[in-house]
């Protein structure tokens, strides 16, 4: 069984590598634009499977493949926990199916294929979420996830149906060509239903309620894939519909999307800073990051509406770059959280502490991931947030004297407040969870996770750094994958276009920081020699020190909670889900009177049915 587990994980890893290669080639325009597969399943109904490799989909394939490889390697070690359940062989099968179905979403070229892949992805991920089905909470989380994802799919079908009604086709290629000619109000309908459908999958507020439940419940490498890639399928689909097909959007589309994104970003980050357990913090931060991505997408739409293709392309490239970086660091952090869970079996931050001494390797990987998470050098997150900021600021500068300038201003406020809140949650995770002394027996006796899990974490850290240390490569690559009309010719960014985005800025910046830090260490040592080190207890005003004297996670977030308490009211639950649920319950109580359990009543129903039939079918 163990051999099978290793074999399946290896297979998933190899397939993911293949997906990376396919994505790379399609971004490089190695494939013809026509579908590479067109297979009719049933004649007479529109059940064709049509697959084509587009440059735009290729970008996302690359993202999926890289995270998939990491998840597969990680899964090898993670499966050891499930020794009693055949080393999690079914988990491996699910992982493989999950990767394949997501790949299918990115290559689908007609409605049937897309919806098929989309639903497969949802079903497989639902099964993976409830893999630990002995826990009642997990089952409940899975149920909420499944219902939200179906709600989203309903909106998507509406959007596709309207598109079909106006173009007379189910092919994406036809949508791309003629969806631009759909009359105004109908376009808005298509846009709105697509936005609602994809927002539910992306976990934008107020459709986020499934995300903080489902992501922590799943096994860690599945959470990594879900948070890293699956919710990006929503971004992919949304960009496909709004930017590639509908083109020439209305201004309010962009403002709506940017507004929803900004709200999600800020509130997601705020909640992430208040949660007690590691994986829930990461799940809320996924909401915050999806908010940022939709903020970027919204600004792209605004620029498209104002017919500024270069600015729009720049904003779009920045958004996709940020999506890549989020995929990488979120995958690393979820896997790291899994390694911590493996080692301590304790999720709340308050029961951890001191892990930097018991789990030295995991701590290094996590601190690297957290740097990119908080958009600080040297992770890729720093560069992509820099680009996003530049995109917003350029848009603001170009429209300072109109209402668009005010929208940009609000976007920037949300952007920076979110950034600072993210730094806060990162420091809370590491400062409370990993530094100082162990707060519990589990944390004190923690031992490192299996080697394959650590290899995956190390590789994840390398990917994060590689994505940020040489941005020209990444940005040129993304620029290649954009639709022709939006390519902003990234090379102009690196050569002379302006001085602050020169090709070498980032490497020079990192080298300077490193060199200055080394100098600050070496110079005093040369002149004054090594300093004598004594070790004593941390000062506690004279008392005996215990680990519980360190600041706690709730204490650390108390000032922010107190200042922003008005924003933390559960609006979604209170004003959206509960009223709807109560409506459902009250209508069903009315209909329940029909089912009263009396035999006589049922006989009466039968008699009346027969009477009606006799009258009607006479």
């Amino acid at each position, binding site marked *: 069984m163990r051999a099978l587990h290793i074999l399946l994980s290896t297979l998933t890893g190899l397939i993911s590598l293949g997906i990376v290669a396919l994505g790379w080639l399609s971004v490089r325009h190695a494939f013809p634009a026509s579908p590479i597969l067109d297979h009719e399943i049933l004649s007479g109904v529109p059940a064709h499977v049509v697959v084509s490799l587009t440059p735009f989909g290729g970008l996302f394939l690359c993202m999926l493949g890289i995270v998939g490889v990491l998840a597969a390697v990680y899964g090898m070690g993670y499966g050891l926990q499930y020794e009693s359940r055949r080393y999690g062989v079914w988990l491996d099968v699910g992982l493989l199916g999950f990767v394949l179905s997501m790949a299918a979403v990115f290559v689908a070229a007609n409605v049937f294929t897309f919806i098929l892949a989309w639903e497969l992805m949802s079903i497989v991920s639902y099964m993976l979420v409830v893999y630990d089905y002995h826990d009642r909470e997990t089952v409940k989380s899975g149920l909420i996830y499944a219902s939200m994802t179906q709600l989203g799919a309903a909106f998507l079908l509406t959007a596709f149906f309207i598109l079909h009604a106006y173009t007379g086709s189910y092919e994406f290629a036809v949508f791309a060509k003629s969806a631009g000619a759909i009359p105004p109000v109908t376009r808005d309908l298509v846009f709105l239903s697509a936005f609602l459908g994809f927002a539910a999958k992306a976990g934008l507020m107020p459709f986020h309620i499934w995300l903080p439940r489902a992501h922590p419940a799943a096994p860690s490498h599945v959470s990594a894939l879900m948070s890293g890639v699956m919710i990006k399928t929503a971004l992919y689909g949304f960009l496909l519909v709004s930017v590639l097909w509908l083109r020439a959007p209305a201004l309010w589309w962009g403002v709506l999307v940017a507004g929803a994104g900004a709200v999600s970003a800020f509130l997601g980050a705020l909640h992430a800073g208040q949660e007690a357990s590691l994986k829930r913090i990461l799940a809320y931060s996924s909401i915050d990051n999806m908010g940022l991505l939709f903020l970027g997408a919204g600004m792209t739409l605004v620029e498209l509406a104002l017919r500024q293709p270069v600015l729009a392309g720049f904003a779009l490239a920045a958004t996709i770059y940020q999506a890549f970086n989020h995929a990488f660091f979120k995958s690393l952090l979820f896997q790291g959280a899994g390694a911590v869970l493996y080692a301590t079996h304790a999720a709340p931050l308050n029961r951890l502490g001191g892990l930097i001494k018991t789990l030295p390797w995991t701590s290094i990987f996590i601190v690297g991931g957290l740097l990119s998470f908080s958009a600080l050098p040297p992770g890729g997150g720093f560069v992509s947030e820099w680009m996003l900021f*530049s995109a917003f600021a350029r848009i603001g500068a170009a429209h300072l004297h109109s209402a668009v300038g005010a929208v940009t201003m609000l976007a920037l406020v949300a952007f920076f407040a979110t950034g600072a809140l993210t730094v806060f949650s990162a420091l809370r995770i590491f*400062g409370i969870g990993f530094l*100082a002394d162990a707060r519990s027996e589990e944390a004190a006796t923690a031992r490192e996770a299996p080697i394959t899990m650590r290899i995956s974490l190390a590789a994840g850290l390398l990917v994060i750094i590689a994505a940020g240390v040489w941005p020209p490569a990444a940005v040129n690559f993304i620029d290649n994958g954009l639709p022709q009309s939006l390519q902003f010719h990234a090379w102009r960014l690196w050569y002379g276009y302006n*001085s602050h985005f020169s090709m070498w800025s980032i490497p020079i910046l990192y080298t300077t920081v490193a060199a200055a830090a080394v100098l*600050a260490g070496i110079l005093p040592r040369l002149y004054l020699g090594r300093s004598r*080190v004594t*070790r*004593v207890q941390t000062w506690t005003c004279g008392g005996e020190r215990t680990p519980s*004297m360190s600041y706690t996670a709730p204490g650390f977030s108390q000032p922010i909670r107190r200042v922003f308490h008005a924003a933390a009211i559960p609006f979604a639950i209170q004003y959206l889900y509960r009223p709807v649920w109560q409506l459902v319950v009250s209508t069903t109580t009315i209909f329940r009177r029909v089912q009263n359990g009396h035999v006589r009543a049922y006989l009466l129903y039968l008699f009346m049915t027969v009477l009606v039939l006799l009258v009607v079918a006479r």
Partner: protein
Amino acid sequence: MRGTVIAAAQILAIILLSPLLQGVIRKIKAIMQGRQGPAIWQPYRDLRKHWVKSTVLSVSSSWITSLGPYLVAGIMACAAATLPVATFSSDILIAGGSVFVLLYLLAGARFSLVLIGLDSGSAFAGMGASRDLLFAVMAEPTVFLALLAAGLTATPFALSGIGLPSEQHLGLFFSPQRVLAMVALFLIILAETGRLPVDNPDTHLELTMIHEGMTLELTGRHLALVTWGAYIRQVLWFTILIDVFFPWGVAQGTGVMGIALGFLLWAVKCLLLAFIVAFTESVSAKMRIFMVPRYLGFALLLAAAALLADTVL
């Protein structure tokens, strides 16, 4: 070659003169309080004292405390290399003097500092860190809005481009939005440099510490580096304000005379600003911690008003 020399001179000026600025501020405050106060060289003496002392580490601390202070110093030196001091020529600046890079480097220094603080497990550090981060949430958007309102829009978001309006008529230069933005930025600078009414730099009273709380467990060289970093941060913020709102005298090219004048005027302007800061500190009392968000919110509002003033007027 000349560019490299000027860049090095700018960095060294910021790094080497930063303790002096702190000494001057303390001296002015002392005089205003009717004390004689220590000499303006006292910060240098303090730093030397820290340098030669041995290091006392907490048993709870890890490599974060051993490496962190050097990283803080490195980040601060690099941040000093992104700011125009004597000349607005942006070729000699790292990342072309991008404001985003500068402020995220400062955020990186804060990140390291908070980790160093929490590493010892001291409760004072946790308290200081969580308050500092709360203020950051409100301060960061304000800084960017204020800079955007002040005219950063015309150029690729580098302070080096902002000097150009100095040719304008004074009334045009100090338009309503610029004045609003300046006040907003000044309020933020008081908060970011840990001054009254937000933080009290002179106290080690447990419950009021913010920055001092995080450095409480540091000793010897680590303390010297982190303290020096705080002095540098103060000069950096002063220089931002000077570059944006008082750019007169900063050279446009790299001519020797212009650079010399630029350095001289920069020093004078820093001293003037030091006087203003010392004055405001002497006449204001420390706020309760949960009043500070209102103060920062006011600054944010001013910055937003500055941006809107452009549309309305």
